[in-house]
């Protein structure tokens, strides 16, 4: 028995070891290294002057830094809320719809996942083209249906830009949440649903009492994935509104803030590598805390429902 277990452990080790090495070298060490750099300052890419927590103090006490940091934080929350609503709520109902078998449901399933296969940059550029105020088709379409007074410079107006970007991202990853939810719904035993239907439950009762409780862990997973994705989102901002999160930082998220501050020259918005690493570390902390909060929340909710 003991011999078998030892053999088993050896086997497990063999499986985990390569992944562990890759993870350590390409994930863990860079994260620790970047945390180290957040304690340094200096010219060039590799800061060499140890300053302790000075960078953090400056980030939160000097106006030139904290204004941009909190602005990105606020934008990120707004961005996260929009994406969560679109992806979770719409994704869920879409999944409910297509998990019912009807003509073409399989086709819709495939269709909804299609955008996810595109590159984020491509999606960004496509949306930018569609929304271009000069030759974009979106404005032409709105004109055609007679609503031209509603047209605004979508990506040039600080009030609409963050929504547009969030919707582009939601559109792209919509299929992912649909996929998660349909697999959850497909996993519910048919007999339970049949029983409910025999008992006379309507579609809303069915969703509320049967589907929702069974897919709640998936809501948690999807939300946490969106959270991590959004608080580290960079590509779509880069493609649609540039590293400054134009217009005037209204679409500046942590990802673009970090890229700009760490890698741009000072004249283009750089803060030096040390401060950049500080921003990265703060992002890491915020994401970790956020994931912790969501995990606790969803675990608790699940326990409540299971009682």
């Amino acid at each position, binding site marked *: 028995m003991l011999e078998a277990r030892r053999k088993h452990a050896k086997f497990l080790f063999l499986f985990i070891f390569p992944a562990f090495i890759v993870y350590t070298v390409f994930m863990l060490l860079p994260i620790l290294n970047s945390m180290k750099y957040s304690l340094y300052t200096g010219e060039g890419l590799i800061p060499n002057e140890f300053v302790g927590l000075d960078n953090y103090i400056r980030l939160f006490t000097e106006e030139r830094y904290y204004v941009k940091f909190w602005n990105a934080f606020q934008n990120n929350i707004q961005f996260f809320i929009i994406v969560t609503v679109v992806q979770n709520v719409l994704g869920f109902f879409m999944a409910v719809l297509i998990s019912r078998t009807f003509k073409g449901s399989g086709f819709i399933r495939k269709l909804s996942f299609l955008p996810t296969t595109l590159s984020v940059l491509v999606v960004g550029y496509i949306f930018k083209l569609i929304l271009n*105020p000069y030759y974009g088709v979106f404005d032409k379409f709105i004109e055609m249906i007679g609503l031209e007074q509603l047209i*605004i410079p979508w990506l*040039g107006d600080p009030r609409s830009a963050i929504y547009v970007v969030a919707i582009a991202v939601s559109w792209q990853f919509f299929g992912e949440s649909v996929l998660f939810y349909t697999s959850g719904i497909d996993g519910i035993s048919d007999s339970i649903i049949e029983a409910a239907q025999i008992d006379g439950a309507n579609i809303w009762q069915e969703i509320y009492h049967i589907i929702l409780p069974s897919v709640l862990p998936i809501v948690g997973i999807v939300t946490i994935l969106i959270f991590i994705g959004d608080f580290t989102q960079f590509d779509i901002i880069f493609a649609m509104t540039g590293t400054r999160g134009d217009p005037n930082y209204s679409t500046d998220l942590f990802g673009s803030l970090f890229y700009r501050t760490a890698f741009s020259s000072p*004249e283009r*918005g750089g803060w030096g590598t040390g401060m950049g690493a500080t921003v990265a570390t703060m992002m890491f902390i915020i994401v970790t805390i956020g994931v912790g909060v969501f995990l606790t929340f969803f675990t608790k909710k699940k326990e409540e429902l299971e009682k």
Partner: protein
Amino acid sequence: MKKLLLAVLLVAMTAGLAFASGSQEAADGGSDKVKLVFTSWRTEDIERMNRINDAFTKEYPNIEVDFQPVKDTEYDAQLQQSLAAGVGADIIFLRSYDSGYQIYQTGSLQELNSVIPGLSGFPSAAIAAWATDGKSYAVPSVGVVHGVYYRKSIFKKYGISVPETWDDFMAACETLKDGGETVFAQGTKDNWMLYEVMYSGLGANFYGGEEARQALIAKDARMTDANFVEAFERMEDLQPYFPERFEGIDYVTMQQIFGTGNAAMFMGGSWEIGIFEDLGGLEDVGYFAPPVAKKGDTLQYCFHVDAGIGMNKNSKYPEEAKTYMKWVASPAYAQLMMDELPGFFSYTPGSYTLSNDLAKQMQSYVADSVPTVRTVWEKLSAQAPSGNQLLGEAVQKMYADELTPAQAAKYVDDGLSWYY
């Protein structure tokens, strides 16, 4: 288990053999030819630069130059990283003043005074953009000017002559607007143009050009002074003539609007000649310098030191790189470059003929003007928030009606508090 080990070993050995033969081949093929890598932020110039470099290889057959530009927005990050990692290009395009200086600070640039004795003959203002304590770290290579492009046919249609004063300019705008034309192709989605071309180029006549800029650097003047505010006010005059929903129009779109003949004017830089040439030809495109305040005023001409060429101190082929650097500082290169890249002006002493009409026109204004460079490019952009960023943001906010000209000036001044 044994089988697995064997397989792993086999794979490793084959891979090793493959690599070994690969490097053998490389050594055989390139035994006497040296390849220098040249990097820049001008991805649009690959073909033109290749033709220039071919001329060099003709003269020095054992040196090949591989032009590998990186997208403008990623250039600085890439350059810093590659230099730090020891895999940087041999020949490097450097931005002027603070940006180039940041690279110099990393200790990866060759000091050039001893390599290129001819440097002392370059205009001192150009040298200053890439030198510290008398040490030059780049050959001043490219200067650009800022002004206004216009469509000859549209101007002709309304009988408008090239405006000299601001009043003429405004009158022309009004006429064009009344005629239902798109007056400017300008948009404000990307803010760098608003500052680098418009405020620095067209504003210089109002804030007082080089003298005012020097006063700003010397801390004898502030952005909130009346002359700088006036320049903001003049920029605001232009807003009514921007296209509909200009807030959403980005840089590429503006070039397309003007380049395809859909707007009467475009406030731009000399580097755009090639772009307009590619978009629809230059026969119908004219150019005039920023209009002065009143007749007889001296033009304050923003002739900006744009790019210098530096050399990687840690290049694998230092001697060949030095040979190339000497060539880059020669009149032969200057002439070639100005032929291939119209709108880029060389600082290399010598007499040249410009083959492009627009470039000639741009140059024609130099004689009777006072040259200056972009308002807050030097020293005022060395830290966060940089003058460059602040001015771009201020003008953008002004065009979005969030700030008045006076508030915009104050926005820049407040942001520059680290400097004062």
